[in-house]
Each structure stands twice: as structure tokens, then as C-alpha cells.
């Protein structure tokens, strides 16, 4: 399902990353390394900078200082087009509120990610359908986001994130907007993905999710890494 990356190889390296929004310091010299095949959970109190950290890795925002290297590429030095291509090729992103296009069917929402790279519609839909089958939502492919349940929407979002076979899957509170049953399903899905080699970075408040899916826990406070330790998946 995903591109194989040699296990143990450093995929992400953040070195002294700072991010300021006016007077507010969101990241204050944060450093972190993530290796291929890892599932890293980033936890911390609200406003500690964990979502900002994820945005830096995803190339959704630029650091004010320090370097963000992903596969050796300095994300902070890319121009807007370079960032877009970087996101397209290397990153899959899952959001708390799914962020699906209401006017497109579930299948077209997923196919969209491939079509942006220039893939023909037919080929993109075929690949999207494969993902729908793998994620168990093939029967919902023609439904529109408004009629899908929360869990189904998040599965569609995961399918979209996987569409271009990203090296890195980033999830920002992926179960935050779901009920417990749907949350469990998404957790299982992420765990499965990691077990087949997908590198995963999760930002979450949910310790249960972190323990269930992640192999390493990174604690962030006041824009810095304040602690990290390995986790045993709870299964």
C-alpha cells in the first residue's frame, strides 16, 4: 500500500525549529527525529505547539528559524510551488474535521489528490476504488460527505491521504470529532497502516489513541520537546 522506506532511516529531522506568530512563540527551538516505519504520537496541552509542529513537517507553514528536513529536503527553503509538490508527493494529511469537499462524491474526493498530479480521471478513480475496498467503504463510494457518518468521512479522508502513496502520514486529532466506536475503527486503520510500514505522526490529546497506535510518544510543552519514550502497542 505504501512505498517501502528502509526501516531505521531518518525520515524527518527538526533542528532548533522556531515559529512565532507576532508576539506569540509557538515553537521554541524544537528538535526531533522520526525514522522510517515509526508511529510517533505527539502529545501536550492545548497551545503547546503540537499542531504547529505537524504543520511544519507537512509544509503547511514555514518555520521562523531552524531547519525542517524531510528525506533530506529542507522544507523551509521551498517556494510555494515546491511546498505544494512536496505535500503532493511525500505527505498524506488527516484532519480532525475531515475537510472533504461537500460538492464531490466520496470517490471523487479521494481521486482528486491523484488528479492534481495530472493522473487521468479514470486511472485516479480506479486507484481510489482500490483504497475504498481496502478500507472497507467501497459501498459508500458514490455517497456525498453530508450523508456519511463521522467514521466514514474520516476513512474517506484517510483514503485521500494515502492516494499518492506518501512516505509520511500525518494525522491531527484524527479521532477528535468521532464517537468512541468510530474512533476505534480509525485507530485500527492507522495501526494496520503502520504495521505494513507506513510512517505515522499523530497529534492527539487522546492517550488511548497514542498508546494504541504509536511506538513512540513525544511530549511537547511551551514549544519544546519535554520528554519522549517508547510505547508498547496496546492492541
Amino acid at each position, binding site marked *: 500500500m505504501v512505498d517501502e522506506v528502509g526501516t531505521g532511516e531518518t525520515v524527518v529531522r527538526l533542528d532548533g525549529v522556531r515559529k512565532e506568530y507576532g508576539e506569540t512563540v509557538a515553537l521554541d527551538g524544537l528538535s526531533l527525529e522520526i525514522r522510517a516505519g515509526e508511529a510517533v504520537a505527539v502529545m501536550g496541552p492545548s497551545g503547546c505547539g503540537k499542531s504547529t509542529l505537524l504543520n511544519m513537517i507537512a509544509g503547511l507553514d514555514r518555520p521562523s528559524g531552524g531547519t525542517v528536513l524531510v528525506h533530506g529536503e529542507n522544507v523551509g527553503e521551498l517556494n510555494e*510551488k515546491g511546498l*505544494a509538490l512536496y505535500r503532493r508527493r511525500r505527505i498524506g494529511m488527516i*484532519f480532525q474535521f475531515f475537510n472533504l469537499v*461537500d*460538492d464531490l*462524491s466520496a470517490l471523487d474526493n479521494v481521486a482528486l489528490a491523484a488528479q*492534481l498530479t495530472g493522473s487521468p*480521471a479514470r486511472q485516479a478513480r480506479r486507484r481510489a476504488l482500490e483504497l475504498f475496498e481496502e478500507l472497507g467503504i467501497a459501498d459508500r463510494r458514490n455517497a456525498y460527505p453530508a450523508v456519511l457518518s463521522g467514521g466514514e468521512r474520516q476513512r474517506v479522508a484517510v483514503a485521500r491521504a494515502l492516494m499518492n502513496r506518501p512516505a509520511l502520514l500525518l494525522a491531527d486529532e484524527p479521532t477528535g470529532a468521532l464517537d468512541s466506536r468510530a474512533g476505534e475503527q480509525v485507530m485500527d486503520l492507522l495501526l494496520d497502516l503502520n504495521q505494513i510500514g507506513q510512517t505515522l505522526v499523530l497529534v492527539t490529546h487522546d492517550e488511548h489513541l497514542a498508546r494504541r497506535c504509536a511506538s513512540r510518544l513525544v511530549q511537547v510543552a511551551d514549544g519544546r520537546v519535554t520528554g519522549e519514550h517508547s510505547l508498547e502497542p496496546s492492541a
Partner: protein
Amino acid sequence: MRAVWRAARAAVRRRGLQTLVIWLVALVSTGSIVVALGLVDAATAPFDRVFGKQRGPHVVAAFDRNKVSDDRLTRAAERSGTAAVAGPFPQATMEIPRGAGDFGLGGEVTVVGRPGPGGPVDRVDLWAGRWPTRPGEMVLNRQSDWTADDLGKQFRVPSGPTLTIVGFAFDLSDTADVWVAPDQIEALHPTGTQMLFRFRDASSENRLRAQLAEVTAGLPKGTLAGAQTYLSLKHRVGSNARAYAPYLMAFGILGILVAVLIVANVVGGAVVSGFRHIGILKALGFTPGQVLTVYLVMISVPAVLGCALGTLAGNLLAQPFFRFVFTGPNSGVLRDSVGIAPWVNVLALLGMPFVCVLAALGPSMRARAMPAARAISTGSAPRTGRALGVQRRLAGARLPRSVSLGAGLPFARPARSALTLAAVVLGVTTVTFATGLAATMTGLGTAGTHAYDVTVYVGSHRHGKEVRPVHSDREIQSLLGSLPGATRVTARSDDDAVLVGSTQRVMFEGRRGDLPLDSVLARGRWMHRTGEVVAGSAFLRRNGVHVGDHLRLRKGGREVDLTVVGETMLDNDRLIAGAWPTAVALMPDVKPIAYHVKLGDGVDQERYARAVRAADPGLSPQLRGPNNITRTIVGSATALTLALALIASLGVFNTAVLNTHDRRRDLGMLKSIGMTPRQVTVMTVTSMAVLGALGSVLGIPLGIAAYELVIPRMTGAIDIALPSYMTDVWHAPELALLALAGLVIAVLGAFVPARRAARLTVAEVLRSE
């Protein structure tokens, strides 16, 4: 109330771009409406205003003095029940030789003996000096924008008395060229009696003629020598302004429609996109009425400011047009009396804000009635998709995905897209109409411009004195032809003559040479033989004459028969032109007043003019300039078109801003999955370009229809017939270019919001959502 005002002020500040768009749209729309309506009003109102002020006569009648006495005329007028009468005034005709005076008089002039400028009818405007009270004094009919320097100068009537100019008066109705005291007129041998009538029903030519017939019913046959109604005067005086009226009316209607549509779209969109804000206000404890007030204030402040400034700008912009529109006979007094009518300003100042408030009221009322929770969720909750079939087909289309996504966007907001489309359609209609108009007017303006380059007038003025040429007529023509650069020379004479069978005086233009001068032949052929003439469409229409018909002209007791062989595109209803032998047959001592010189290619006109002045100081060369009326129509049409296209573009701009605002979350997501800034720009521009392309498809036929409606009315107003090559303006290349008009309007309007959308910071958008 303070909370309401504070919330409204905060909303205006917070939504800076929206406020700016509302202000700008209100400003440009109001300005355009003021200019368009002001000019439409000015095209018809000034004559009535001045005519009413002077209590101008509905009919000016001349009676044969030998057949009816003054007393009998007075009794006839009283019996017939006319509304008001002035006269009888003795009327004489003087033949003034050319060059005998330099007071604007020449040829045959009408002199009336009248005791004063006032009275129940025809209160002439004595603007300089005084009225003549004794023999030897006269007042000249002259517009007040002329000079009064000639006051006190004397003029000797050939084989008559010497008269001193004691005043200048202006009479719009042109009842006389010269007025003298009643004691003086007998010395000028009056042959007629002038009566000036105002009738109760002045609505039509027929009604006026019928009422005049009642007056003359009891008088001996043949008593009435001639009569002219004010309607023909009005037709002649206002012809230029009337020519502008249909085109200004078309622009006015288009301008109002575009402005109202855009204002409705902008204002309605502002309210709809603020639903979440409305919910928050309600949650804070604002009553529905207060919410409504906040929104109306939020919309009204920029709208009212825009309307006020737009009205001011419209008044300033309209002034240059008046200077051009009111040219021609007696236009000076009309030009002085026109301005933007108060009703136009009142309408703009009250009507446009009313339209804005009305547009805001519908969505505001919806917001007022909406529960707080729903209003809040309207701004953020996932909504049911729209136009899903279209989106599905586009998703599978063989188009770049950014293009197919953009093409589907207009269907997601059908009402907003429909209003925007309507504005683009009207924008394209305007551009199409203006393009056709400009092509025709350019054709009209350049018609015959290659016939000659320099006009050399006989006589010049140096240090206030007239200088006559040292050469004779024939010597001048050969001199002008021998100067370096000249290729052909045609002499032209202009003389008054009488059209036998009517009281109408015509201007006979004699031409010696083969240049067609500046007239364009609409029908028939040019004159070749003695007795053949061509006349303008206006002349033929006024006199009911057709090509092939015969006329008889009288001049100084000599009569000649003429055949009309061609119709020219002249709007002068008094002019006919013939070859030189015809002019000589009518006036054996005819002399040219000007020579038209065609220069060789690349010859410097200024240099030729200097050579003419050096060769004979009594000649005044004048270089051919551009056609001002054409330039004004093309210029004003271009300006109005640009204004309307700008408004339509602002409408597109507003829609693109609202759409990108509504879709910030989608844009953030699309960028997060790898949509490049260029793809975002392409998507946003495409969404409006679809409306632009559709706007072109619908707008071009409407523009052509507007052209077909307006052009015949414009040319009809000034009595000219256009040759078909001037109205055959729609060809494939032009239509292909026009098809781009809608796209240009849409792309111009969408580009800035598209670039803004492309620059959105994804993290910021997704966080705020």
C-alpha cells in the same frame, strides 16, 4: 443603540474588503447613472426650458402687407381664441452684399419693426445695450456667447438709411435678424407683417396648422405668405443633442441594470457570508431587530458614501459632454442652460442607497428570523453538496482537475452566479453595442476626410481689420494649385436662394473642380451637367423631395430649374450643391468663398498653409481637423463602456471574493493535498471564466440588437441616411474578439481574489476553520 452602532462599526472595519467593494460599486454605478440620466435629460429639456422662458411663439406667421391690414389681422387673432398673440410687426427684407459689413450679417436678412423686446409672446433676451427707440438705431439677433464689441458701430443699408447698433438680443425662435423701431421700418419698405402666436394645443404640427387655419379663415386668399412652427425649429436646434439621446438612453438603461444587479449581488452576498457573525450577535443577546439594524447600517454606510461621491463625480464628468453635445445652431444659449437636472441627483442620492438597502433587506430578514445556533452553524457546518450531477461529470472530464473543479464552482452558488452572469451579459452587451457604434461613428467621421486637406478661405483679419486677397478668383485657384504639395483644388461658393413654391431659403453650394468635398453619396450619383444638383438626406426629407425630382430656385429675380441626381449624407437641411455652371446660371456674379486643396501624400499641411499666407495675406488657410462629434461619441461611448465593464468586473471580483471566502476550508484542504498556487489561481479564474464565456454567448446578440435599435434612431434624429458599408460592422474577426469580452471582464475581476486565494496560508485557514 450604542451596542448596535458599535457592532456595525466593528463589522465595517472587520470586513474591510467587502466594505471597499460595496463603496466602489456604489460610487462607479451612481456616477455612471448620473452621467447617463443627466445627458438623456439634457438632450431634450434645454430647448423647452429656454423656449418657455422666452414664451416663444408656437407659430411665426408672415402676412402679405398689401392684402391685409394690421387691424384686420389683430381682429382675426382675437376672434380665433389663441392663447397669446404678439404683433402685427412690419417686416422687411434687406439684401446685404457680402463684405459690406462684418456683423455676422450677409445675404438676405429679415428686419422687423418692433416697439420692445417684451410682450405676451417672444420675450427676446436683450443681453447688451438697449432697444432701438428712434430711427437710425437697430438691435442685432446674436447669441450671448458672442462678442458685444460691435456696439455703437454703424452699418449702411444699400440704397437705404445708416443704422447704428444700439443693442444685441437673442431670440431662440429666430423671428428676425435685425430689429428696428417701428418709426424706422417704413424707410426699409416692409412687404410683410409678422404675427407671433401661442396656441392652447401645441402638441403637433397638424394641430398648430389647424389652429393657424382658424386664424386665417376669414382673411382674403393668399394673405398668409409663410409660417413656421416651433416644432421644426426645435427639430433643427436640438438635432445634435437628439442624435445623442438614443445612444445615451441605451447606455443609461444598461448602466442602471448593471449597477442594480451588482449592488444587489454585492450587498446580498455580504449579508449571506456574515451569517455566522449574525449567530454570534444573537448568542450575545442582540434582538432580531438589532441584528437587522447592524446589517443595514453595515451596508448603508459604505453605500451612502459611495453614492454621494458617485453623484459628485457624475456631475463633474458630465460637464465635458455638454460642451460637445450642444453644438450647432443656437446651441450656446442651450449649453449655458443645461446641467445635471436636480431630479437626476435626487434619484441618484436616494435611489441607489434605497436599492442597496432593499438588496440587503431580504437576506437580513432571513438572518433576523434565523435561530442563533443555525446561523452559527451555517457558516461552518458541512452542507449538502450542490449541482452534484454537474460536479460528477466534470470530475470525470478530460480536463486538468483545477479547471474542472473551477468550472463546477458557479453551480454550487446558483443565485449568486446568476446575478454575476447577468452583470457580465450586460457588460458584454455594452461592449458589443459600443464597438458597433464606434465603428459606424468612425466610418461617419472619416467619410470624405481624404477628399481634401486644407480649406483656404477668401479674406483674413489682421489687427482687427479685414484683409482682402490681392489676387482674383481664377488667379487664387491657379496660385493654390501651383504651390508645392498641392494636387487638386476645388472652389466653393455658398449663397442664399429661395426654393420656388415655398418660403424656404436654401443655401446653394457651387463647386468648381472635381473633389467630392466632405459629403458621402448615400444614393444616386454626383452632378455632372448644368442643372444637376445633389442634396443631403435632411434637405430631401424636409422638402419631400427624392432623387430624380425637379426643383426651381430663385435668386435676385432669376430662376433656374434643377434636377436632384444624388443624395448625400449631409445633415444640413438647407444645403444643395451643384456644379459651377449651375451656380453661374443662378448668380452670374458668383464668387467662391473658399478653396479646398488636396495635398500629395506626406506633404506637411502646416508648411502648405504658411506658403498660402505668404503668397497672399488675404487668404486664410485652415487645416482639416478631426471630427469632434465623432470623437465625442466614440470617446464618451468608450468611457461609459469602460465604466460599465469595470462595474461588471467589480461584480465578478465580489463574487470571486465571496466564493473564495466561503471555500476557505476547501482551499486549505486542496492546498494541503498538493494543489499548487497556480492551480488555485486557475481554478478560481476558471470559475468566473465560465460565467464570462456564457456572458459573451448571451451578450453579443443583445449588443447587436441594441445597435440595430439605436443607430437608426440616431441617424433619423439628424436626418441622415448612412450608406450600408457604415452599418455593416459585424464581421467574423470582430465577433471573435467580442467573444473575448466576457472572458476579459471575468478574468480581470477574478484574478486578484484568485491570487489572494493562492497565497492563503494553509495552516492558518485550517486552524481558523
